[in-house]
């Protein structure tokens, strides 16, 4: 079930990333991080780690054939573990906190990515500060919104509306 959820999430993430790319968005949200964070919710480290692998590989694949395959997989796995660890030891309920956590995860991933590129290539390829900040903000907003939406009891509300129409 989790695998289907991950697959569906990754498919949506790919579509959303392509859509934002078509819109020439300078700082699109990290939708793949959202899939990993979804698996890490509730403190499950193993699902988050395993979801980070395809998520990162897909993200690398989307960046073109010259990209290093596995670069984002590394960071996604690491971030997934961090998020799972945080989720297992703290209780994050509010969407704003979730958004902030996701924004921090974007920054951590960017830092890890920069360090990894420096280790592998010898170059410090740090992203532009405002773009990174914008990506973190948008990812936090989208993630917080999705988390908030996921907490809404849609079935109960629909059932309540049905009952109200019947009465």
């Amino acid at each position: 079930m989790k695998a289907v959820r991950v697959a569906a999430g990754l498919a949506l993430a790919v579509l959303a990333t392509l859509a934002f790319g078509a819109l020439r968005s300078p700082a699109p949200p990290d939708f793949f991080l959202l899939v990993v964070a979804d698996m890490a919710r509730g403190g499950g480290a193993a699902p988050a780690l395993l979801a980070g692998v395809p998520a990162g590989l897909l993200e690398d694949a989307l960046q073109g054939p010259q990209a290093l395959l596995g670069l984002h997989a590394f960071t996604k796995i690491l971030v997934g573990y961090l998020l799972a660890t945080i989720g297992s030891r703290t209780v994050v309920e509010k969407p704003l906190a979730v958004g902030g956590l996701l924004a921090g995860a974007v920054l951590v991933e960017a830092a890890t990515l920069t360090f990894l590129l420096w280790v592998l290539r010898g170059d410090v390829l740090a992203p532009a500060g405002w773009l990174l900040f914008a990506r973190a903000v948008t990812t936090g907003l989208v993630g917080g919104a999705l988390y908030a939406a996921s907490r809404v009891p849609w079935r109960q509300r629909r059932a309540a509306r049905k009952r109200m129409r019947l009465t």
Partner: protein
Amino acid sequence: MASPSLVARRPEVLLAVLLSLCLVGLSLQVRRPGGRTAGQTWLLAAVSPFVEAVTSLRAGAADVGTWASSRRTLFAANRALSSEVERLEGELLRLREAESDKKRLLELLASQPSPPARTVPARLIAIESSGPFRTGLLDRGSSDGVLVDGVVVAPGGLVGRVIAIGPRTARLQLLSDRTAAAGVLLPRGARAAVAKGDGKGGIAVEYVPAIEPVEKNDLVVTSGTDGLYPNGLAVGRVSALARKSTLFWDIQLEPAADPQRETLVFVLPPVRRPDVQGGPAAGDRR
């Protein structure tokens, strides 16, 4: 990868495995400054000992081949050089001999600035000793103008006279021959005497009165009275002096020209031409 129970209990193991796999995958893709990926670099590093071993073996085999080839080449060169050295040594000996001949010739020309006409240079190519007889062989003969009774001289002095001739060779009688004789003069009293070969390489002067003054190292020359040799040719120096009896000296001469050492001689025309060409000379007592 790992069992579910282990993953559930220790997710750090899964984390480490996944991160390591990612790092390995990335390292295999990253290109280093030399243009190779890390994987290629690692592969090269892994196979480099084998490549070095093969290269060393190949270089060793090539060295052995080069050594064998060089050895053959060196042996051939050594043989060629050895034969060349032998040839050059022969050439050196020939040149030394020619230089010695030239030196003797110059000495002779200096001592006799105007050699007689029809003087024939020749090489004394052999010395023969048979009992009391001592003869020599010249490499010049009648075709070169050598005549019977020709006087053979060396830079040191008288050697002998021609007793037989062929077209290309001539035989001479050495003065040390037991049957050879020449009229000589003693220097101090201008006393005429007769020098005769002793058959042993020396010359003896006989019948010199004991009252005649004679000293060792006196130079005895031909007198020209025998009709065979011209006068004034050095015959030898007095090497031993003794009284044979109360009347005569017993005088031994050391030949002025040693035939054993002389190679270049000159054949002077005979003082008295023989009546018959090739016939026995008047002074030949053999």
